[in-house]
């Protein structure tokens, strides 16, 4: 009813009753074909209950790696390679705060509590303009909202971990609290073993999260999350490694009017690790690394019209890095205290995006972001002679900067644009062009990401990484959107991605730039995904063919790798096939299976020996000329729901799964050892036998 002016209108309403059919409201049902976003994957935690798991852990990030375009270097490797990008190129957000090390046990388990995690959106191609700072992807993980009406909880007991989450309203229908905690009893298992070596080793973790959401009134909502995770493990009996993540976020949603909304986000994240070395000698030390960032972000939504929906905002992030401090851990230690200069940087951005619906068929998402980075003092930076390799003899000077003095600035526009065109109502074509800038780099001597890798900010001698990507995709929905089909292709170019000179030393190195190379990368691929969302049989099937190359060229021999040509990146795995299937036998029993096949990753092999300085040395092939054997694995699972009696303490279900049913000996790494003059290759594997697991889950 529209009222155009003052006046009176009297009318009567008659009472009548009508039985309505059941109404199902499905959110985002056709999102995959409707939105203009290319290369987005959404994983809903509720939908992955039946997937077979290893050691009883339902792991949303592991599920993410079953999607085409998201890969890991291998079992037990943390970090993801998204569309041929390095592991440091993913912005992993938990309730808007960056989580630097989202895994436990060096990557065997994700650091996210499956019961409190609501959903995960992965942006692989068109990254919304509001996000920035990483080249390849955004993993946006959202914690569930607590139950507003009644106290409830969920828990699980597995062979390695126990997990409990609780939800409770604080003010009914207005505010709620959800909290989750997880811990492992592996420390207890290890101590109970007979083996002396294992008895003294340490491997344990825990994490906890609290989220509080309060709807103040119809126009204002605030929510806050606090997360903490901690890992402790020993690699040798004399060293203890500890790392932890600490996040705090605060978000205030405000609605000015029907057309204008705002979000104010304040977050702080910290990641740090420690190595405590305690041998029997005078070399005991304590080594520490820490990165801390605080970000303030303002997002505005402006629904200008049906045709134009604007989003705009700004953000600023302050980084503080302590790149390494070593100190003697006892009085007898001869280790000298050393602390590298702290690094400081300010990364800011403004953005605007317009969701422009040109016709019913054509939708444009035009985004522009401008990011700006300033490396800040106090700092001392080496100045090198141009055109010469960076080494101690080419330093021509040193510049010292005072507190908050600007050392160097970088910046640039980032275009985030994409379109959707409906070919038919259930068949769409989408495309996107994106460019991204990343001002922070991960230093890692390993091919796989490890928790003792360190993050470094761009500075006078280290440039930011930059990338551009074009993607094109076809999306088709069948059977009333129950079946989704997609085919996407992409081409990505990167520059100034970080690599290292041969034999680089990265820890406690005050002239780190002398070990670094910045090269180019290119990646391309096609990804196919078939997803069936409902029915007795559901699941998905993904395949991707993708390549990723790096080029390290320079006029200087020392800084050239593989003759300055493109070579496969460490994580270049061309074929990747994954399928995850669930079959619902009855209401109580369901089977699930998942199968993965991947090309083995590239590796540098020794290809001969020679003698120099009276000593035998090994000559290595060109970098990444060979590959380790292919990877494949089959997991099976059985879910048994508890009885369906109405009166019972808790709803429960059992999950029985067998990981690596085929007992495939997938190599985790390959290395070479000189056994009495003969060079022998060895492989290490993690799961060489099928691992059965029983987990008990309950809900109340």
């Amino acid at each position, binding site marked *: 009813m529209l009222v155009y002016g003052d006046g009176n209108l009297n009318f009567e309403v008659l009472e009548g009753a009508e039985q309505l059919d059941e109404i199902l409201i499905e959110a985002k049902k056709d999102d995959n074909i409707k939105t203009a976003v290319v290369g987005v994957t959404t994983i809903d935690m509720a939908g992955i209950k039946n997937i077979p798991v290893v050691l009883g852990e339902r792991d949303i990030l592991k599920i993410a790696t079953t999607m085409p375009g998201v890969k890991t270097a291998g079992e037990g490797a943390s970090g993801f390679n998204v569309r041929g990008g390095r592991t440091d190129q993913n912005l992993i957000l938990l309730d808007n705060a960056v989580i630097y090390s989202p895994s436990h046990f060096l990557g065997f388990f994700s650091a996210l509590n499956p019961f409190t995690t609501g959903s995960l959106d992965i942006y692989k191609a068109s990254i919304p303009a509001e996000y920035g700072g990483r080249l390849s992807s955004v993993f946006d993980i959202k914690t569930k909202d607590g139950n507003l009406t009644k106290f409830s909880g969920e828990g699980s007991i597995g062979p390695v971990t126990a997990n409990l989450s609780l939800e409770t309203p604080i003010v009914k229908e207005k505010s709620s609290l959800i909290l989750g905690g997880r811990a492992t009893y592996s420390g207890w298992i290890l101590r109970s073993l007979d083996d002396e070596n294992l008895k003294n080793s340490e*491997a344990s973790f825990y994490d906890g999260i609290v989220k509080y959401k309060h709807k103040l009134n119809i126009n204002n909502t605030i929510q806050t999350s606090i997360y903490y995770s901690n890992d402790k493990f020993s690699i040798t009996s004399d060293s203890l490694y500890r790392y932890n993540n600490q996040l705090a976020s605060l978000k205030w949603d405000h609605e000015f009017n029907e057309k204008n909304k705002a979000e104010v986000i304040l977050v702080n994240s910290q990641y740090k690790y420690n190595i405590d070395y305690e041998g029997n000698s005078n070399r005991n030390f304590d080594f520490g690394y820490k990165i801390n960032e605080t970000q303030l972000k303002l997002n505005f939504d402006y629904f200008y019209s049906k045709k134009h929906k604007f989003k705009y905002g700004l953000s600023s992030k302050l980084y503080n890095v302590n790149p390494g401090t070593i100190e003697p851990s006892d009085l007898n230690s001869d280790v000298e205290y050393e602390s590298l200069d702290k690094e400081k940087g300010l990364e800011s951005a403004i953005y605007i995006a317009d969701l422009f619906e040109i016709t019913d068929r054509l939708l444009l998402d035009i985004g522009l972001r401008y990011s700006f980075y300033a490396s800040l003092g106090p700092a001392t930076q080496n100045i090198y002679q141009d055109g010469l390799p960076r080494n101690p003899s080419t330093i021509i000077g040193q510049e010292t900067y005072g507190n908050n003095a600007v050392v160097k600035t970088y910046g640039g526009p980032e275009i985030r644009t994409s379109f959707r065109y409906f070919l038919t109502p259930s068949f769409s074509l989408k495309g996107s062009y994106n460019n991204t800038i990343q001002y922070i780099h991960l230093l890692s001597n390993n091919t796989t990401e490890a928790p003792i890798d360190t993050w470094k900010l761009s500075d006078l001698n280290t440039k930011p990484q930059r990338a551009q990507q074009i993607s094109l995709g076809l999306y088709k929905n069948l059977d009333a959107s129950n079946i989704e089909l997609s085919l996407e292709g992409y081409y990505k170019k990167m520059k100034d991605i970080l690599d290292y000179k041969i034999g680089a030393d990265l820890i406690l190195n005050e002239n780190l730039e002398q070990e670094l190379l910045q090269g180019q990368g290119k990646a391309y691929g096609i990804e196919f995904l078939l997803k069936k969302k409902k029915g007795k049989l559901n699941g998905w099937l993904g395949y991707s063919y993708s390549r990723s190359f790096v080029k390290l060229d320079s006029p200087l021999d020392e800084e050239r790798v593989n003759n300055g040509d493109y070579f496969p990146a460490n994580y270049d795995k061309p074929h990747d096939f994954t399928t995850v299937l669930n079959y619902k036998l009855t209401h109580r029993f369901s089977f699930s299976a998942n199968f993965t096949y991947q090309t083995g990753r590239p590796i540098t092999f020794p290809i001969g020996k020679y003698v120099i300085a009276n000593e035998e040395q090994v000559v290595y092939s060109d970098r990444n000329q060979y590959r380790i054997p292919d990877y494949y694995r089959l997991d099976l699972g059985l879910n048994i729901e508890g009885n369906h009696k109405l009166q019972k303490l808790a709803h429960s279900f059992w999950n029985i799964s067998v990981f690596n049913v085929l007992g495939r000996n997938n190599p985790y790494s390959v290395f070479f050892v000189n056994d009495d003059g003969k060079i022998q290759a060895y492989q290490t594997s993690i799961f060489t036998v099928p691992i059965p697991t029983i987990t008990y889950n309950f809900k109340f």
Partner: protein
Amino acid sequence: MKKAAIFKFFLCFIIILHSSCREPFEPDSIDFLDALVVESTITNELKKHEVKLSRTYALENFEPTYVNNANVRVEDSNNNLYSFSLISDGSYISDSAFQAISGVTYKLYITTQDGKEYESDSIELTPISDITNLYTEIVTKDNGETGIQIMVDNNNTNSSAQYFRYQYEETYKIIAPNWNLYEAVLTNFSVASNGDAVEFDSEFIERTQEEQICFITDKSFGILQTSTSDLNENSIEKFPIKFIQSNDGVLRDRYSILVKQFVQSIEAYTYYEIVNELGENQNILSQTQPGFVLGNVSSLNDTQEKVIGFFEVSSVSEKRVFFNYSDFNFPKPEFIFECNLIELDYSINATCGPCSPPIRNERAQIYRLLTTFEDDNLNYLITEIPQPLEGIWRLTNPECGDCTTLGTNIEPDFWED
């Protein structure tokens, strides 16, 4: 089963951290790289310089193949040409003595037998900086081992000399502990039909050469480098060259070490540093990125051909030091070779029947041990003339009775007792 599998997981997890949960793995088809390996350092010493040429060898092999019959020459920027000639497998020595001079560049040319040509970059002599002091200190290592640390100081005043590589040559005297002036020679032997009993006459003749006191020289092994580039002071202090455990047999009879210091260019230093680093053992958390290390010698015929090695022109400085174990109040170390003393019975009673206790006659064994020695198949020798001859003979391994089996009996010119 389930428990076992989970334990196995933990076992593997922890063991992976300890990096030993491993099994051999045969990579399919590795293309062996057959490449020329060049090793040469021309110095500012006036001497005949050496160029070593070899080729890479397969991973399962133990010995390099040497490159012989190559044409090797060094040319300087004053158009002086120094030709080299093969003197032993893969080793070429300049026909005349020469020394590198600062301000002149040198270039190595190689033409192999199959006509392939190689050349190095043009290299200039590195700055000169001498070893100030070569000395020893008693140290006790973290693992409790006590010994002698040989160290170098260099109060380097030449700020342009920042990169150093060291080589050393240890020479030590050995006195054969079971030496005997006489050798046993067996003659007129006859072997019984069953092969057990052997009859022979023995004769003892005086040795014709020095076999009691010898000298052993060992060259250093591996790459030993240091740099002053990251130090405020350009000087080297207490740089450890070699550690000798207090009970090491090399100290038993006088020991000497010659340390040579080569001043390197940054390029040469970096090359050797990377080669050395790649050769070190790595664990799973600190793998260095391996790859092909580019040297400064390249092929003229095929720019893609890989050549290994570095041609260096370095200034050199050397110092020698002598010492004895007694200078440090160490107990006398055991001989470098573990001596096996055997006592055998030469008694006439060849056969005895059911003697109790049986009478030994071990002439067959004496014969076997002493005569195979004659075939250069060094087996055993006599350590003292048995008295009486028909009694017990004492034999020992040649290493303990004849020092020429371990070293040379020629006293080096530099030797000081």
